[in-house]
Structure formats: C-alpha cells, structure tokens
C-alpha cells in the first residue's frame, strides 16, 4: 500500500474536510437552512422582551419563527446565492493577499480556511468581508509567519487590531481546530523535476506548462471546491493537465507503468470520498518504495499501486478534477472584478445580505466582548486565573444594549448571563451549581 495514501488519510484535511460533492452540497443546504431559522428567531426576539411573553422556555425546542410574532422577516439568501457570494469573497481574499504581497501558500491556506469556515457557517451569520481578513491573518500564523497584528492591520486600513483579532478564535473554532492545509504547490515542483529528467520533453514546453499550472493552482483550485474533493496531487495533476494535457499524461503513464499479470483483484476498498483514490504524488511513490518493507511486494501489490487499472482510475479522477478547475480558469479573475458583472450579480446579493444578517453574530467585536463578559462573569472564583477586571456595570451595559434579553429568563441564578431565546435551555448547561 502506498505509504502516502495511508499518510494522507491521517490528515485532518482528509478526515475532517474532504467531502463528496453531494455531501458538501447537503451540508451547505443544512447550514443555510439552520441560519435562516436562527436568524428568524433572533430577529423575532429583537423588538423587545415584551414580545416574548408566551412561554419562552418551551418555544425553545419548537423553533417556529413563522408562526408567532414576526411580520416582516427579510428575504434570506438561498444556498446557491451564498455559494455565489462565497466565490466573490474568495476572490476578494485573494486580492487582499496579493495586495499584501503574501506568498502563495499563505493565500491558499487562507482561502481554504475561509471556505471551510463557511461550510458550517452561513455568510448571513458572520461577515465575510471581515472574516476574509481574519483568515489571511490566521493563515500567516498557521504557515509559521508570525507578524504583528498592528503591522498586518495597516495593510488593510484596519487601525484597530481588535477588529481582526475578534474573529480569530471564531475562525479557529469554525475550522474545528484543524489548521494544517495541504497544498499542491510542492507537488507541482516535484512533478516538473521528475518530468525534466525525461529526454522527450522539451524544456520550454515544461516551463510553460509549470507556469500555467501554477496560475491554475493559485486561482482555480482556490475558487472552486477542489480542496474539498481531491488530494493535493490530484489537483496538481489536473492543473498540469489543463496546462498541457500531454505532459500530465506522460507523467501518469510513466508512473503507472506496471503491466499487471493476468489476474488482478482491484477491489480498492474505495471509500466514496474521492480524495482517497489517487496516490499522493506518484513521483514520490517510486522513491519511497525503496523502503525495506516493500521488499515483500508481490506483483499483485505492485499492480495495486502502479498497475494499469490504477492508472485508469487516476486518469478518471484527474479528468473530473480538471472539469471542476476549468470552471474557474485564471481568466475568470476578470469576470469577478468586472463592474457590470458585479453590478448585475453581486451587488443585489450583497444588498439582500445586509437585510438578513444575524443580529447576534454580525458584529464580531461586540460578539467577542459579550462572550468574554459572560465568561468572566461566571468564572468568578474559578481557578482559571482569567483577567478579572470587568465590572458589573459593564456587564449590565453589555447585556442591556447588545443583547436584548428578556429579563424574566434570568432565573437560573446570579451567574446566569441572561437568557436569550433559543435552545440553550434543556441543554446540558443547566447543571446544578
């Protein structure tokens, strides 16, 4: 078994952030639907406490926003509309990264973070324009580049570090704390080095292919869901194939050259996530197989790794990835910045978005402040040694203004942060004090 496959299956990118297109679409539908429900609830509770007299406790488990109070619910974004805005903001992110002259890896990590975050969070809930800056900042760190927030903020005209920092933890949580993103850039370099050893490929052709493939990796791979569906090496091969199909196929046939003996058992226990099928960077396979353990490789093992039916399978996967990437070729950059397009397609959605934002979540700084207040408040006398410099008045101010809280729900005790509408109830948290 190719070690790279097994290795890749251990990564968080595979375990947590790889999905089939169907799965991903379903998740996004879920996210969209959940956000609508919640925002509707929250908007409904906005007017005043007076509105929620009818058994706030029980309404918790029966979210029925349409039913009770609300007359004027905004029109929400649909999942496809969110997806379209998502692409728009991904490009915004890439442009911001270009503006700050960030290396490809950081921009790519940021884009992956951004898109992952919005798989389980709706852009109606958290502000994409700000989260993309947060994603860039955190991507710098994740890639080992620890720059000062003040310096970083300056590049984007953000004078208050808090504007960016407020979203950092949120992002990290939304990523489920998996912050290592595997990219195809090094794979491309490796593939080109491998190809350059072949006598029959012209150097100029290879240079051109690498250049074009890199452009595709820097744009198409990030503007699409490629990272969710394919491994880095598959993405790399697809990009190379788009750049120069002959070169890519040469590499693939070169790698999967083993002619299987008559019998083959090709039940590759294939999990349905597409990411498993292709071996990671075929080029490295050949090298690694020098490992002592490969000494017991039988012909069958070999055909399992570099046999022709595997080649066909890889080719099929690459083809599918290629199709995906070709939807956002680098030339599409102009499309996403074209004024007419923006005006016709994006502006209306953004307008819509301003009307259906989540009132509790949209302001990241405020959100963070409230959370900290809550934590400090209930953490009194705790062993955590948290900063304890917040006063009761400021708590009151926060809960009074930021969160319209029906006062009557404050029944759990002095430590209760006050009750919002929603399912906090019945939930585990009502543990005895």
């Amino acid at each position, binding site marked *: 078994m190719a070690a790279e496959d097994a290795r890749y299956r251990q990564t968080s990118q595979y375990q947590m952030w790889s999905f089939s297109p169907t799965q991903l679409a379903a998740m996004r539908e879920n996210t969209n639907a959940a*956000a609508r429900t919640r925002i509707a609830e929250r908007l409904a509770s906005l007017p005043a406490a007076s509105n929620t007299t009818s058994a706030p406790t029980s309404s918790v488990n029966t979210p029925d926003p349409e039913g009770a109070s609300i007359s004027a619910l905004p029109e929400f974004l649909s999942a496809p509309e969110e997806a379209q805005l998502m692409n728009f903001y991904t490009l915004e992110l890439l442009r911001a990264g270009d503006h700050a002259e960030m290396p490809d890896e950081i921009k790519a990590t940021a884009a992956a973070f951004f898109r992952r975050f919005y798989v389980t969070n709706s852009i109606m809930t958290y502000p994409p324009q700000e989260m993309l800056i947060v994603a860039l900042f955190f991507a710098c760190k994740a890639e080992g580049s620890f720059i000062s927030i003040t310096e970083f903020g300056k590049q984007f005209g953000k004078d208050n570090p808090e504007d960016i920092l407020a979203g950092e933890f949120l992002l990290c949580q939304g990523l489920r704390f998996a912050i290592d993103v595997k990219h195809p850039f090094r794979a491309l370099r490796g593939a080109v080095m491998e190809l350059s050893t072949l006598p029959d490929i012209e150097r100029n052709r290879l240079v051109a292919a690498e250049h074009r493939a890199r452009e595709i990796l820097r744009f198409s791979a990030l503007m699409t869901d490629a990272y969710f569906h394919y491994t880095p090496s598959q993405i790399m091969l697809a990009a190379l194939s788009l750049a120069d199909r002959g070169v890519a196929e040469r590499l693939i046939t070169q790698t999967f050259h083993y002619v299987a003996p008559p019998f083959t058992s090709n039940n590759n226990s294939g999990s349905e996530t597409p990411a498993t099928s292709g071996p990671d960077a075929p080029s490295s396979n050949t090298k690694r197989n020098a*490992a002592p353990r490969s000494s017991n490789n039988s012909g069958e093992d070999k055909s399992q790794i570099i046999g022709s039916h595997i080649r066909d399978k890889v080719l099929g996967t690459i083809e599918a990835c290629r199709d995906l990437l070709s939807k956002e070729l680098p030339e599409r950059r102009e499309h996403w910045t074209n004024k007419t397009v923006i005006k016709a397609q994006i502006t209306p959605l953004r307008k819509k978005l301003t009307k259906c934002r989540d009132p509790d979540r949209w302001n990241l700084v405020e959100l963070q402040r409230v*959370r900290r207040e809550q934590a400090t408040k209930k953490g009194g006398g705790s062993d955590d040694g948290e900063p304890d410099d917040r006063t009761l008045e400021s708590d009151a101010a926060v809960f009074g203004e930021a969160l319209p809280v029906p006062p009557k729900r404050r029944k759990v005790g002095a430590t*209760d942060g006050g*009750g919002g509408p929603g399912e906090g109830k019945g939930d585990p*948290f009502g543990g005895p004090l």
Partner: protein
Amino acid sequence: MAVSPLVAPTSDAFKPSRPISSPFKRQTSAVPSSNGNGTPRYPPAARSAPGDGAAMTLDPIEQLNEDEKRKYVKGKKLGEGTYANVYLGHVRHDPSTLVAIKKIKVQQQYQDGMAPDAVRELKYLRELQHPNIISLLSVFSSKDQNLNLVLEYLPLGDLEMLIRDVDRVRYGAGDIKAWMGMLTRAVWFCHDNFVLHRDIKPNNLLIAADGEVKLADFGLARSFADPGRRMTANVITRWYRPPELLFGARHYGGAVDIWSVGMVFAELIIRAPFLAGNTEVEQIALICKQIGTPTEDNWPGVTQLREYTVPSEVVPVWGKEAYMGRFGAVGADGVDLLVRTVALDPKKRITAREMLEHRWWRTDPKPTRKEDLPRKSGGEEKMGADLKRRNGILDDETNNRGAKVARKLDFGQAK
C-alpha cells in the same frame, strides 16, 4: 505505515481513529437531545457552565464544540504556567479513562491573538499520530475563548526524572536501547512528515502508563522550509542545540533534531547532561572541547555562518575510541551510533531513518520490553509526586530551562 520502516509495527500502529467527528456528522442530532444529559450529578469541577449558551443561542458549530467539551470532565489543576494551565481530567462516560487538559492562556505579553506556541502545537499535534508522539484527543474552546487541548494522560513522568534519580532508578543498556528506539521512531515520524520538532530534550519525553515514551511539546515545531527560506536559529534548549544553530544558521533541516537526540542518548548513558553550557559561548566551547572544533576541514562552509566563532585552540574531532571510556556501556555499536548523531557537519550527521537502520538495535542486549522498563515507582505517594511534576512538564516553558529559548524566539523574521 505509522511506526517506522524497520521496527515491526505493533498492533496499535494505527491508533483507533481520533474521536473527532466531521463537522456535520452530528449536526442534526446535536441539537437538544443527543447529549445524554441524564447524568444529574456533575462533579463540581466540571463547572460546565450554568448559563452557558443561555445568553446566546448556539449555532451548530458552537453546539458541536459544547458537545466536545462535555465529553470530558475537568478535574484538579496539575500545574500552572504562563503559557498554559494543566488539569487532570477524565472522559465523562468513563471516569477511568484519564486525560490531561491543557488550557492555553491568553498571554498578556503577546498582543497578536493566539500565541505562536499554541498555533504550532495545535497544528502539528493534530496531524501527527504515532505511538511515540503524545496524542491530541480533542480540542475545544472554553467559554472564555481559551483553547483547551485534551491530551492523553501520561502518568509516569519523563525521561529526565529517570535520568536524575540516580539513587533509586537503575537502568541498563537494554533499557537505554528501548527508550532510544522509541525516541528515534518519534523523530523519524516527524521528519518523514516534514516536521521539525526543535525542542527535543529529556523532559519533553514523557512516559505512558505502559512504559511507552512519547515525544511532547510541539510549541517550537515547524514544517520544513522550502529551499531558500530562512528560519530562526534561536530554537532548541541550549544544552541540546547543535553547532549550526549556535553559529546562527538560518537554513537547516532534520539534522538539528538529530543532534538533540544524540545529546539525549549521551545523557541517558552518563546520567547527566553531556554538554551543559551556561551561555551560548560556553556551549560552543564545550562542543569544541568534547567533540572537536568545527573547521573548514571537517565542515566545509562552517566559517561562513554568521556567528561562527570558536576557541583559538583547535581540538581535532574525537574518534570513536575516545568515547568508549565514558559511553562504553552501550557497547561499540552504541557508541558508533552516538558518534554519528553528533557529527559536527549537519550534512554528515546521520538521519533518523539511517539511525533506525543502524546495527546497534539488532545487537545484544535486546531492547527491554516496554512493560519491563524501569519506572519511577514506589507507591502511591511517588505517583502523587510525579503527578505534581507532570504539570511543569506539560506546560513546559514556564519553569525550566526551555523557557529562555522559547521567549527569545524572533517571531518577526522567523519564517
């Protein structure tokens, strides 16, 4: 694939997959019911937050986080440091499964959000799963927006404790071989995954209940840099720091960790730090004296390193024989391996993989089985004492000699 290319993998080479669910797997069921909220009496320590979520409703991702948090019960504090507090904890539905919960503090002196050591530790521990690397079981955020790392509980202290307790802990060549084997596999695995640990030393080598050694503390780790990219030279605790870093090299590779492994090896044998300089200058002097002076002859290019300075009296590099007197306990083959790990020129230093292929592992005595390894035991009190020390180790940087290294890191240019 997980263990090493050479040592037959034990059956747990593939750990049971981590209890980390995919973001949506449980979303639908996560809403109110699934929490198995039946247990009415939470230990007080688990102050799982009355009022949590009351002031604000939870989004699916927040709910998942709450669920993750609720899988564990946080117990008494084991230790407190500037970087983190460490708590004993257990799995809620199975109180016999202990865990260590490392709660990363928001650092006052670091104004730029989540601190570098936290980011690094999170990033690498999340990806590296190997029997000889401490397991990250889960991560969740507490209400105050602090990061909590749930780590496997390693109750038997660390290698440093065993090395230092000369009076009560006795061990021999087979034991050293076993410990070194586990350490080398861990380092091989890191390097094979393109990760540099950059702080290998005895008190970052923790011992599990079954005797397994686990490499911990990835707060200084980073991925291999692309060729040409600079890294900081200011890593690895001084006594374990290789000459190239002492000379300010900004381009380096796995060899830096190998030097540290060699220093640990030597320390295991002589039961004291081999090269314990009080300053960097002293450290270089010690290396020159005990191992040999780096020169253009034995290390082409070394004089070009920007902080290259050596004592004027040039000491020729010592041969194997010179080590036999002091390190002979591990036999000629063991000494051969040791000498290769402390080659001055990093290009000539043995790699982790080559270490695993070394003949020493196959010569007598055999490595001790891990359950038979000496441990610091002697009753409940001892165990309690170990537990108390554990913390200082888990949230490492606070009160040991690693602290200075970590603090001095030059983040601005550390790439």
